[in-house]
């Protein structure tokens, strides 16, 4: 545990006293303390461009009454800042005369990752050497490789949550990430490929002896494939998505609309659909924050609640939303371990952890065979969603044109769009090959970024493809 009270005039006893004085007459709240160190080393254009250490240190104090949140944060952890924060919270919430204080929390002793520091797993010198080897490896694959960017990012995030009555919860969250992107050039045509790996296990689990090569090979494959790609078609057609990272479809099209804040605000397209059938029989969607070692996993969420497996949609029926403590309280549900925040500068909100769809019965070959004209998406990019209308979009990095059940040629420059409620009805076939992504998802919501996991089996769905060929 990081001792936040070592370097300040604020003692733990003082802090607990101010927390009690401020929060005992509020419904909820906590003091959130963070101390994290991040090291990022980037090789670009054949040289180590920079090494960068970032230290994020500070506290956020939150008080909640009914549906109103008062939040104050600062990088100076000392007595005066905590007293100022307390005054500020009391001022915002002064009109609330009655309260129902609840500081009970669901805890667990389960550990989904060990308490290690990935920054120290290898010396800086070794990491620099590895990135240079990566650069040589990729450039030796083809003289069409014009640019390689490779980075190693490691982080150790220590957090502590103090609630009323001196209740203290803490967690040390390691995170490692290894990313490759490259540019190939043939004639006047530029293509890109990118791939990554990472999670909360040890450095060597992701960037060991030879597993970095797989990441390089996949990035290379994507860029090389697009050298001969033609224009993607435009219009509504069958789309076969490959397994794994295509789970970003699920994340955007459905996941966000099932976050609890959009339930109590009644702004989600699904806010009045709980218990209703919203998709076909084969569709079961899960958000699971307690999978061992994964990028989206947490021993506890950023409110101190234990993470868990939440079945959101079962056999096509909408079962539940994902909640933080506030949305759970306002909708009379229990928290689901989805209260997350990027860092101490933000109050928590309902966020996804690792979100995926369960297996169906079909094989990918059957799906491709059944398509007369459409595309097979080999590598999806990122996406976004408007939760009110349910419309989502994402970019396609690599795809193949399918004609009469066969992959004909690579196509590029496509976007996929649709609306969540419609697309879930249009998933026609689901594969038996569920795969979780390689550990590089980052989700943004209201300006906060958090690491997430994704997964999906191969599936076939009718969607609008935004290419430039009519």
């Amino acid at each position, binding site marked *: 545990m990081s001792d936040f009270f070592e370097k300040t005039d604020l003692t733990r006893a003082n802090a607990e006293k101010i927390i009690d004085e401020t929060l005992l007459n509020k419904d909820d709240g906590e003091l959130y303390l963070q101390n994290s160190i991040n090291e990022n080393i980037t090789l670009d254009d054949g040289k180590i461009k920079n090494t960068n250490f970032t230290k994020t240190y500070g506290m956020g104090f939150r008080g909640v009454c009914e549906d109103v949140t*008062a939040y104050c944060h600062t*990088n100076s952890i000392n007595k005066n800042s905590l007293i100022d924060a307390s005054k500020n919270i009391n*001022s915002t919430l002064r009109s609330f005369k009655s309260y129902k204080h609840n500081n009970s929390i669901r805890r667990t002793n389960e550990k989904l990752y060990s308490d290690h520091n990935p920054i120290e797993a290898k010396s800086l010198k070794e990491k620099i050497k590895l990135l240079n080897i990566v650069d040589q490896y990729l450039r030796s694959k083809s003289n069409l490789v014009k640019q390689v960017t490779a980075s190693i990012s490691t982080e150790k995030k220590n957090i502590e949550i103090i609630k009323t009555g001196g209740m203290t919860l803490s967690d040390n969250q390691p995170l490692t990430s290894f990313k490759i992107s490259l540019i190939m050039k043939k004639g006047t045509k530029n293509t890109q490929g990118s791939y990554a790996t990472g999670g909360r296990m040890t450095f060597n689990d992701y960037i060991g002896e030879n597993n970095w090569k797989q990441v390089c090979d996949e990035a290379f494959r994507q860029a090389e494939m697009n050298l001969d790609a033609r224009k993607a078609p435009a219009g509504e057609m069958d789309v076969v998505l490959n397994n794994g990272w295509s789970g970003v479809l699920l994340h955007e099209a459905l996941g966000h609309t099932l976050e609890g804040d959009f339930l109590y605000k009644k702004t989600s397209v699904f806010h009045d659909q709980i218990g209703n059938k919203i998709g076909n029989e084969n569709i079961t969607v899960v958000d699971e924050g307690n999978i061992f070692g994964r990028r989206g996993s947490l021993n506890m969420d950023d409110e101190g609640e234990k993470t868990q497996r939440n079945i959101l949609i079962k056999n096509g029926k909408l079962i539940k939303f994902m909640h933080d403590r506030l949305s759970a309280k306002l909708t009379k549900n229990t928290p689901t371990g989805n209260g997350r925040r990027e860092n101490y500068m933000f109050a928590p909100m309902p966020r996804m952890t690792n979100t995926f769809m369960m297996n169906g019965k079909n094989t990918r070959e059957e799906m491709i065979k059944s398509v007369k004209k459409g595309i097979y998406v080999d590598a999806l990019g990122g996406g976004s969603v408007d939760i009110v209308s349910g419309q989502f*979009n994402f970019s396609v990095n690599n795809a193949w044109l399918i004609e009469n059940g066969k992959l004909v040629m690579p196509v590029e420059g496509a976007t996929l*769009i649709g609306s969540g409620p419609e697309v879930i009805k249009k998933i026609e076939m689901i594969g038996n090959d569920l795969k979780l992504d390689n550990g590089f998802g980052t989700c943004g919501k209201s300006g906060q970024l958090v690491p997430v996991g994704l997964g999906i089996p191969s599936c076939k769905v009718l969607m609008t493809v935004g290419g430039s*060929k009519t």
Partner: protein
Amino acid sequence: MLKEKKELENLATYCIDKSTKFGATNCEVRVGNIISETVNLRNKKIENSDRSDILSVNITTYIDKKKSSTQFTYIDNKNTNVMIEKCIEATKLLPDDKFNSLPDKKLLAKNTEDLLLFDKSTINNEKKLEYLKEVEDTALSNKLISQTNGSSFNQSKSNFIVANSDGLLSGYKKSEFSSFTDLVAKKNSSGMERDYYYDSKVYLKDIIKPKDLGNNAAKLAVRKLNPKKTKTESIPIIFEKRISKNILGILSSAITGSSFVRSSSFLKNKLNNQIFPKNINIIDDPLIKKSTYSMPFDKEGVKSDKMYLVKNGILKNIILDSYYSKILNKKSNGRASGLSNTFFEAGKRSYEDLFNCGKKLILITDTMGAFGNPTTGEFSCGATGIYYEKDFFYPVNNFTLGGKIENIFNNIILANDLEFKYSQNCPTALIVEGLVVGGY
């Protein structure tokens, strides 16, 4: 209280002294204090308040031609020493890069003009709430607005110092007041649609009137109601101003020094070549007074001046900092912090006249996803808009736009309705051909 200049200067000087003592041959330090206060209202009720006070330090250390950097929020001098030592250790391990250096002393900003970027006024949370209530009262008085998705008012004040071991020690204060509302429209049994409006000003007294904010956002959300789908076709496209500004976004990401050096731009070999029609001029002016996006110098302390990016359709300048300008054998143009107030000079045709380009067209009111890929030059995004046919028009959504970025550049026709509202500003823009709509 916002930290005073002297205090930040002392901290910056401390960091330079320590870095030098620990072995840096050169170093650059940026110190910034930001105090930001926000209130959010939703459906006429306060939803949350947020106060933030951050003092951050950013240090780059050089040992001859080796370079490394560190960022942290200030805790105390002891922690600062630890971070600097770590940074120096890393610097020693890095290979030489002959282009690493502090900026050319001759280019540093001296005696800069006051751009009026700081307003002493403050607005307390009660006044912010009053403002937001009026915004939401106005918006919700529109019968088609069913609820608000949140309205916020933010006051942000910052003080910033950049210093280096060549004796640079400059800084300036900034203030920003911004208001925002996000509304949900609903009509009978139709689905919900949302849209937003915002404003951001350096001076509190210049911020948009709450009634106008509420009305503007309501109009935008309501016009999306009862959308139809549209078919796949090639058709003229008009980008509204809040969308057409993204054309400057994609241009600016394709003309950075780094993308030219790294060959990651589709415009790499286009400097001094025609990339737009002859009547197009694009300017970046960091010295506009009272603009949130102005800056007397960039984050390296290099003076930034008004500059043509595109003149008579020809790409004249790219975005340069010290490092990439050296590689390209040019001088930094003070754009280490990126562009500032960028704009297309207004065109000659009226807004109405753009709609006379054919029998049918789509006015794009919103897009989703990246507005083009600056490496490949491909363009594809999700879109929402209004379909105009001869005598009638209706909202359409859930379609895509696809093509190439150069199709947009080559075919752009601008209206005469330029206004300065964002950091990138473009008049309403017509693209007669070159974009494909993907629908059913």
